[in-house]
């Protein structure tokens, strides 16, 4: 199939990529841009490990065509840290034992960031609802929820 040109902004940088029209956004991010932090866990939009922010909203990049991101802004896990320092969410995940194998972690952090951007002071139920589309098989979610709460507190200066 003939390749088509995709222009998009990823983590603040503009890119022009020649993609196969069948390429998903996930494939464009991983294979074309070498940003392998975003993962493929199921290829069907069910595990959430491919979560990225599209114009600030969390989406499953494995079930979205790359060309549908034409002219848009994507934020991946690599774009979450600020000025070379861990984002409070990343710091909280490390401190609260919220990372075991680490495979769900990028998608989990991106979903949590989307939540805190909308709701800086979420309840436990709201946190669990925000990450319901991010499957974790290792942690049982307890430490992840604790980490998101702690990050929310740190970010609001409480």
């Amino acid at each position: 199939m003939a390749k088509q040109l995709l222009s998009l902004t990823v983590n603040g940088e503009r890119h022009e990529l020649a993609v196969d029209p069948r390429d998903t956004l996930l494939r464009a991010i991983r294979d074309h841009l070498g940003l392998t932090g975003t993962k493929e866990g199921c290829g069907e939009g069910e595990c959430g490990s491919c979560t990225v922010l599209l114009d600030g909203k969390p989406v499953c990049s494995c079930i979205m065509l790359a060309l549908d991101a034409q002219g848009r802004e994507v934020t991946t896990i690599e774009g979450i840290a600020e000025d070379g320092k861990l984002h409070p969410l990343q710091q909280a995940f490390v401190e609260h034992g919220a990372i075991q194998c680490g495979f769900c972690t990028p998608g989990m952090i991106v979903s949590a960031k989307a939540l805190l951007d909308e709701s800086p002071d979420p309840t436990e139920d709201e946190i669990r609802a925000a990450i319901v589309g991010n499957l974790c098989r290792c942690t049982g979610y307890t430490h992840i929820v604790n980490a998101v709460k702690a990050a929310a507190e740190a970010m609001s200066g409480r």
Partner: protein
Amino acid sequence: MKELAFVGKPVSRLGDPEKATGAARFGADFTLPGMLYAKIVRSPHAHAKILSIDASKALALDGVVAVATPEDTPQKRYGFGLGDETILAQEKVRFCGEAVAAIAATDPYVAEEALGLIEVQYELLPAVFDAEEAMKPDAPLVHDDPASYEEGFIPFPVEPKGNIATHTEISEGDVEKGFAESDLIVEERYSTVPIHQSYIEPHACLAQWDPDGKLTVWTCTQGHFVMRNLLAKALDLPMTSINVVPMEIGGAFGGKIAAYVEPIAAVLAMKTGRPVQIVLTRQEELEDARPRCATVTEVKTGVKRDGTLVARTLKFIVDNGAYTDFGPGTAGAAAEAGRGPYRIPNVRCDGYSVWTHKFNTGPMRAPGFPQITFALESHMDVIAEKLGMDPVELRRKNGLRTGETTFAGTALQKDVFMECLDKVVARIAEDPKKDAPDTGWGIGCGEWRVGGHPSGATLKINEDGTASLIIGAPDLTGSRTSIAQVAADELGVRMDQLFATVGDTDEAPLGPVSAGSMATYNMTNVVRRTAHALRQKIVALAAERLEVPEEDIDIEEGVASVQGAPDKRATFAELVQEQQVAITVTADALPPTHAFAVHGVKVHVDRETGNVTVLRAIGALDCGKAINPLSVAGQIGGGLVQGLGQALCEQVVFEDGRVASRSFTDYKLPTAMDVPPVEPIIVEGDLSTSDGHGCKGIGEPVHVPTAGAVANAIYNAVGARPYELPMTPEKVHWALKQRSDT
């Protein structure tokens, strides 16, 4: 004794920042120039002779570089319990989904398209899909001549009778006499279904064959030494020709030990002379991986009126699937643990591992134990009710105490089983809402035997005084960090002055597979010895340089100083200027150790729909010594939630000769909204013999008793007891209906 700076503290894990930023590299995260993408051609039939394979149309497709068929593979058999597997099916297929051929292409779309162009002719054969049917003498045979097979990797004594691969028999005392002396005999049957480890990272590997005859395989593996061993057998190569590099691994739970993807990648790499990547789809994971086997438990227990358990017979059948893998170990170990953590003088337990024409099964997180414990702990509550006794009192009466011997052969030094039970019960008693309608708490008690494994470690002081530790056990569960904590404390450096790496099979000393909860148990033992030996060397060098006796030397934070004269000091960097200080220590396998776990689960049951909501979950673990309490709490949480999945919603559905579950829509995993926060209780004090401060294995016991606790909670909530896992709303609804009909 000087207080330990790192052991026993909730130290943040090595490698976590990389995982938080997405920098950590997993099996699918890197490519090599010229890399090809591979896809596997699979049998659509459960049992059939392969008559012919025609790859000509696929090879004619632009972008297809090679097709591997069985002729391209060495005719060697290999495997875990028995050497019965081949890289691609030889002459016949034994399950729907078995690998028959493989394609390597320049891009994944071409590889996918080529799958449909390989033409395989089959002659169908009769098949058997139920383990109990397969045990009958006239059942179609899965393996015609298993006596001709090689020994397996483990190897388990396999003496097949028809489709019964192994029969483990445990017999003690006199069960007939015991039943005759019993006041009550309870006989029941429980069953469980296959469930998948469902690691979020699908299998991913990359194989490269150098022209000078060296194969390098980068892969997600729990045990790269096991992988090297199996590859050497499968490919008929010496181990020096193979280097296995363990990547970060996105979950495993037992499913990433066997070699069934890597040999195919290796064959294609050798055939094409180019690097070959294979990443399985989620559908392939459900169809041809190594999930937990389905089981049947038939148990008959004799008990006295006062609750003393007297006699038990037990039959445990493992539906093993087409090839042996860990079936014998699963059935055998569960039979050995057929008493549960209780004192029963007269027992006869029979464990069977049975071949069927279905997908392979493999070890999953305490193989055999979550299944048998669901049965045995449900059974305990049934016995208690028939005796008119509190189920906790029944367990107190029969539970193992200080001085008694566990099934693993260890003698309890402390009443840790009772301590776990008491703490869970005390937490439940504090619940002001424990008697709410249609709500109930349930308890499950379990145990696990942790094996020993020979291991080694290399520790060296670098020219700047920092320390590098190289080990050979993949970091599956944070073991690398716990091991580093032990090393840092023993050597006398800070955590930031020491770096622990998991080396590949060429570089690292042999390490245990990170399975069976063996990693921290065995590795902290050898690493502490290694760090101790290196510390002795440093002390000797310092004593010579500072001209004092060795007993006067103190080591702290990478500096050697003289007691009472702290200005007389030498840094590690100064001490290693003249000579390199490095050491490799190996250790024999430790004897097995043993751990108890007690879970308390509170549920609400909707009487109309049968839906079970888990309201609270408590997990107590007897861990000897918690090297990293944050890690231990994390394991308790993860293991218990996996247990909830097994109890309530997970099932690999098999219908019409094939796996019907195709994705996470079909195969339901617990989400963040399905489970409560897990409340961990860490119980220490019954130390193992590991020089790693007496720690035991963590990863598996934490997953053993959950399903039993949930079953008992459901019964306590609404008086209905399902006898099959998973306890879906449908099953609970029918159990409720049955109860109200009778």
